[in-house]
């Protein structure tokens, strides 16, 4: 099926190589030079094709041979993806380590899926069954808690001629269609082409992340999109790791795109040790990692995002809820800028190519809750980190991203420096899913959820206004009522919004816990206003110890029990001030 053609190199300029003598299609894979470096056609001009090469081109010369593969860049899809760690073009890093040593050298292509591992397949169709693209042929148990459904490739359909149960390697035939098409556990899909679905559905279920500020104030929907822009050190990566760890997705695809090697190592050592709070299985068993760090080739960085999203779509097509984190989409855009400038394309804003916004849009468009070809439903939630130059959100990547995504978690350098984590600015962030998700919270958590959330936002808004006055005149000149408001807003910030990622208990907060914590703060606040009105001195209210206990309760393993104790303590303290409250 693969037709190969030979040509030769005309020009080498870093990762961009111009070749002659072949007539490939756009985005076909081409191998260049004596080292057989893999690349992809990104421009065709007259008799010349321009290739972006996924490996370092040092020493490569004009005149060296080129082989066109006749096929676009494909992602291998099948059992064995979970727990894997790949580079941007789906080469398994542990295998590269074994074959090339501790440093990544050149010229080795390595398949994404292990060819020798056998999987126990149980079929779900039989001779005579009619199947279409996306139909489920059967399943293998990929990890302890994940059943990997074997799909008919999206563009294939027909009638089953034969199908067998048993142990198979990914390439072995498990059956045939009547037209002779061979069926196996894996198939390939071109990474730049979205896998088809029947239609997209309205997202109306929240992705519960276990992060209080996200779930309560700015929730993202399953199948939705969110971005996390922030300057260096504001907590984008910690946030993305938190979401990858704790969000209630069935599958997580984590793309380290042009970031630090050490951060990927951290994921690799932490995830196998951490347990999914819902299934109890190691988090690694639902995760696929893609690591193309900042010093790895930029062209492969550009591809890494497509490798990731294609894998995410594949699991969606099995009917799963998938979360995809990309850290950082800015580095991805920069990779496009680097390639584009080598092509001497007309630059747009800040040197980014004019098609930047189209590429970003196409990526985020691959998210969504969808009605699948096989009749099932699945979703992909995309959460992209953005690293704005100079932490200035007016730059093109942040602005173009904001046009696409529905949730904006704005990280604030000032908050990070004050060590208020997560440093999400509660005044500028937003979620456009609030209305569609409200019924869910109303139904699944509590009917006063909406009211609590609104009160919280109002309180924080009010605090911002009052703080401006305090800056000018000091807090003593504020009316007592307002001084109390500042105090309660502080509880919201310090007890509720602040969440310690590295604390064993606080790292993840269930939605019920979020609700009871928030409700208790508001009830406590209401009791304080009440006491003030009844003539209790403000200084006495400020001296109460039980608010401090509440701050500690969130760190306790048996939170419910601890909360009961705190509330009892609060009642007692109010009583001693002569107020019946809570």
């Amino acid at each position: 099926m693969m037709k190969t053609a030979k040509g030769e190199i005309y020009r080498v300029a870093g990762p961009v190589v111009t070749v002659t003598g072949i007539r490939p299609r756009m985005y076909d894979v081409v191998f260049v030079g004596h080292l057989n470096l893999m690349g992809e056609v990104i421009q065709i001009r007259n008799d010349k094709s321009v290739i972006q090469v996924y490996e370092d081109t040092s020493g490569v010369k004009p005149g060296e041979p080129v082989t066109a593969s006749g096929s676009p860049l494909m992602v291998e899809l099948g059992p064995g993806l979970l727990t894997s760690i790949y580079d941007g073009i789906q080469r398994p890093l542990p295998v590269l380590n074994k074959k090339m040593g501790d440093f990544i050298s050149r010229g080795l292509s390595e398949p994404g899926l292990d060819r020798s591992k056998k999987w126990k397949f149980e079929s779900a169709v039989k001779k005579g069954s009619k199947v279409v693209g996306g139909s489920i042929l059967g399943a293998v148990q990929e990890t302890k808690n994940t059943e990997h459904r074997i799909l008919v490739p999206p563009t294939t359909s027909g009638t089953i001629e034969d199908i067998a149960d048993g142990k198979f390697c990914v390439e072995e035939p498990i059956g045939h269609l009547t037209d002779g098409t061979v069926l196996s556990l894996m198939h390939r899909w071109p990474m730049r082409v979205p896998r088809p679905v029947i239609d997209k559905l309205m997202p109306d279920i929240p992705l519960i992340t276990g992060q209080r500020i996200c779930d309560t104030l700015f929730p993202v929907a399953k199948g939705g999109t969110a971005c996390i822009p922030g300057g260096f050190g504001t907590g984008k990566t910690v946030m993305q790791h938190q979401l990858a760890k704790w969000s209630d997705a069935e599958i997580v695809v984590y793309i380290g795109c042009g970031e630090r090697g050490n951060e990927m190592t951290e994921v690799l050592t932490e995830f196998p040790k951490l347990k999914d709070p819902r299934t109890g299985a190691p988090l690694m068993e639902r995760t696929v990692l893609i690591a193309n760090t900042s010093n790895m080739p930029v062209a492969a960085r550009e591809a890494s995002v497509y490798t990731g999203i294609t894998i995410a779509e594949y699991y969606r097509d099995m009917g799963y809820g998938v979360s995809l984190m990309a850290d950082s989409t800015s580095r991805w855009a920069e990779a496009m800028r680097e390639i584009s400038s080598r092509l001497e394309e007309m630059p747009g804003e800040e040197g980014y190519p004019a098609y930047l916004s189209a590429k970003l849009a196409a990526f985020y468009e691959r998210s969504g809750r969808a009605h699948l070809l096989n009749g099932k439903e699945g979703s992909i939630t995309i959460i992209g980190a953005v690293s704005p130059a100079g932490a200035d959100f007016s730059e093109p990547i942040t602005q173009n991203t904001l046009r696409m995504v529905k949730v904006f978690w704005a990280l604030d350098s000032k908050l990070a420096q004050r060590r208020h984590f997560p440093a999400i600015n509660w005044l500028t962030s937003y979620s456009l899913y609030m209305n569609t998700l409200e019924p869910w919270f109303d139904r699944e958590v509590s009917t006063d959820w909406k009211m609590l959330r609104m009160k919280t936002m109002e309180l924080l808004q009010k605090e911002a206004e009052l703080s401006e006055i305090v800056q000018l005149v000091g807090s003593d000149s504020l009316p007592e009522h307002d001084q109390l408001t500042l105090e309660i807003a502080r509880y919201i910030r310090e007890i509720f919004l602040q969440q310690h990622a590295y604390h064993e208990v606080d790292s993840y907060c269930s939605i019920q816990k979020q609700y009871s914590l928030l409700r208790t703060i508001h009830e406590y606040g209401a009791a304080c206003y009440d006491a003030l009105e009844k003539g209790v001195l403000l200084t006495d209210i400020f001296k109460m110890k039980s608010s401090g206990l509440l701050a500690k309760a969130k760190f306790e393993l048996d939170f419910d029990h601890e909360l009961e104790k705190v509330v009892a303590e609060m009642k007692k303290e109010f009583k001693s001030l002569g107020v019946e409250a809570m």
Partner: protein
Amino acid sequence: MTKEYHTITDIAGPLIFVEKTEPIGFGELVNIMLPDGSMKRGQVLDTSSDIVVVQVFEGTAGIDKESGVCFLGETIKLSVSLGMLGRILDGSGEPIDGGPKIVPDERMDINGSAINPWARDSESQFIQTGISTIDGLLTLVRGQKLPLFSGSGLPHNEIALQIARQAKVKGEGEEFAVVFAAMGITNEEAQYFMKDFERTGALKRAVVFLNLADDPAVERLITPRLALTAAEYLAYTHDMHILVILTDMTNYAESLREISAAREEVPGRRGYPGYMYTDLATIYERAGKIKNKKGSITQIPILSIPGDDWTHPVADLTGYITEGQIAISRELHRKGIYPPINPLPSLSRLMGRGIGEKNTRGDHRAVEQGLYAAYAEGRDLRGLVAIVGKDALSERDNRFLMFADVFEDRYIRQGRDEDRSIEQTLELGWELLATLPESALTRIDRRILEKYHPAYRKKHSK
């Protein structure tokens, strides 16, 4: 013999364009023979069957169209051997200390290769620098890249030297070997480093690469890569722990900008090329610790940030790549405090790997958080005092105000040769925390407080 071409068509800035060559490899090293008999070196930036673009390291001054061009058929390599220790080399790796040539044990490509993320070690060890602010609050660990964010006129060089002199890993006798790369610094600054290396005998365990202010700017692009290649050789072939000091990365970035402008590339922010993030990453990411290798590479890049503006591309992009930053503060320096490190805008992202029971002490995190929060609060109050006056502050606030002063005077300030052990640093921390009302230390875990707070320890000993 390699063929010599006399086919230069254009000369522009640091670039020459050569035509009618045989196939030339991308990145190949080039010798340029000048009419006066001298020779310059360069590297191929772009190669095609029609024209080859060469970037000349020593600048194009004196090159004419008749100059000869030889392509050496290989990319830039550095001759490495253990004999490099104690040697002083120029910015392109040639000895300038009057000693013999380096007898190579190996020749290594100076661009190195990316460490496979899978091969990196997630565990590390605490490096004691003897400087309280760093050890206590911004702990450095082996394999980390932690830059000094500084500005002109600030004592970053002294701090870097103090770190280099004092750095050790607890319980291991072995010292660090230092690889020092100077890019575009003045002769006087270079002398300052060299004298100190000689005074302390550190030179014996150091390799020095010097590209000074009056050396060719383009050469600066290879100097840090040479240094890191030497570091990788010593770390991974000879199991040594290497501390790499790169100064000044701002000069490096300027050279990068210069080349980019000469190539008429589309400029990114403030004229720096769009690929500067990637370029800097290929330097900084060479720091690391590998699972099955004994040696390690720790990096301390120094940046003098123009206008103390952290949004400047050099600082910004560095911050996006390194594992934190140490902020050298002009304000503390003006107050006469050495080392003027402000912990508040500083951060060590790998601190967690180097502290705690196993590495330093069980209370390290608690002391760090306590001191950070108290100093932050004290500094905030300074702002408020300016508006409302000291009398308007509560007793509690006044204690915090005082804390900030004492913290700067006793914890941050220390002698240039004062080498504090981590125990001393932690004890000092507790001593200062004890000046605050205990009710203000709510963030510190009860058990830790009772074990380490001086008030309780007195009780225990009674």
